[in-house]
């Protein structure tokens, strides 16, 4: 079972599309792997929809545009093309092994760059998603370790497949963890390898846009 989940706030911002591109990928991949967070995101979307469309003060709704003209434009329009033309590749091959990619990563497999080898049985490949943050696959072979380190800003890590440990816990498939810049840790594997994705996160803008729709529910959501 998945033990470590993104925060409520991360799920809200994911549903609103207001995280950084790297964090949208991270949270989206966790949601793919976690039925509980999936159900949760559906609830959040439902709340946001209710807030957006449940406008009861009809005074706020101005019929301030030519509805008839827009209707006619829509009736005579072509069906919009879906921009996701890239063939999804749902597997990743590395060190002679095949790893199944969760749907969010599979849909974005064309963004995965070249793998490069790092010292200590580690491999890394960038995932190019735009934005200020770095998103990388990190693969740790068996008996591998990273030296103790801290980060500038937050670091989010998600286990795609395998197991690793740090001083605090053991992390398995689907586990999502967020470390702030005060956090020191030394991840290591034992007799199992581990494929993760990791995002180094810049400052977030929490208070804008769609997520504001949830303000009236914040006592429910931001426990």
């Amino acid at each position, binding site marked *: *079972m998945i033990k470590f989940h993104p925060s409520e706030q991360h799920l809200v911002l994911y*549903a*609103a*599309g207001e995280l950084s*591109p790297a964090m*949208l*990928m991270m949270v*989206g991949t966790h949601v*793919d792997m976690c*039925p*509980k967070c*999936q*159900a*949760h995101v*559906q*609830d959040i*979307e*439902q709340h*946001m*929809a*209710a807030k*957006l*469309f*449940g*406008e009861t003060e009809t005074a*706020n*709704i*101005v*019929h*301030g*545009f030519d*509805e008839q003209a*827009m*209707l006619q*434009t*829509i*009736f005579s*329009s072509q*069906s*919009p093309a*879906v*921009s*996701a033309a890239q063939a999804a590749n749902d597997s990743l091959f590395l060190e002679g092994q095949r790893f199944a990619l969760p*749907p*969010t990563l599979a*849909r*974005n497999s064309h*963004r995965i760059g070249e793998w490069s080898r790092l010292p200590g049985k580690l491999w890394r490949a960038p995932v*190019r*998603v*735009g*934005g200020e943050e770095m998103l990388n696959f990190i693969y740790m072979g068996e008996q591998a370790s990273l030296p103790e380190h801290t980060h500038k800003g937050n670091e989010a890590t998600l286990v795609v497949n395998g197991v690793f440990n740090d001083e605090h816990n053991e992390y398995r498939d689907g586990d999502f963890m967020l470390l702030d810049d005060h956090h020191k840790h030394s991840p290591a594997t034992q007799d199992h390898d581990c494929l993760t994705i990791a995002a180094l996160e810049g400052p977030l803008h929490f208070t804008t*846009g*769609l997520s504001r729709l949830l303000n009236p529910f914040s006592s429910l959501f931001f426990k």
Partner: protein
Amino acid sequence: MSSAQPDNPEHAAELLAKIAAEQSRAAFSELFRYFAPRLQAYATRQFGNEQTAMDLVQETMTNVWHKAHLFKPDRGSAATWIFTIARNIRFDLLRKNKHRQNDLSADDLWPVLAETNDSLDDDYALDNDLLMQQLAVYCEQLPKAQRTVIELIYIEGKSQQEVADALEIPLGTVKSRTRLALQKLKELIQHDD
């Protein structure tokens, strides 16, 4: 004639079904008159720009018109589906003029508008064995009538119409039992830590 408005979820879902099945302009116009002004009011507040706001309304409602067949009533309300389309359009509009090659598109993140192979196991990621076992336990907590419908659909793979025929109950009843059962299952999953 019913006096239902599109703010009634059942009615909104029926309108979408009519648009999908027979390209009913009347059904779409009714949905449009309810949702478009609300989207417009919201988008104007969001963008502070009339033209971008109108683009959001038009692109969202154009997708509703052409893609109504992708709406899955068991998965959420019509309003939620339309919200997720608007969310995707907004996401892309905010990036549209930046022309950065690597930028994510909304379809890459939330495949709301992808033509899928529409399998039932898509709905709640039922492809996980562990989850299946757990779900079986949860199913036993459902009222008998709902459990029967869920078993026929999700285990025997019958369509909702086939279930209606087999049990000699109206299709609408099958749909509402399915929805209530999925809702109940969702609650059970969420409250089980």
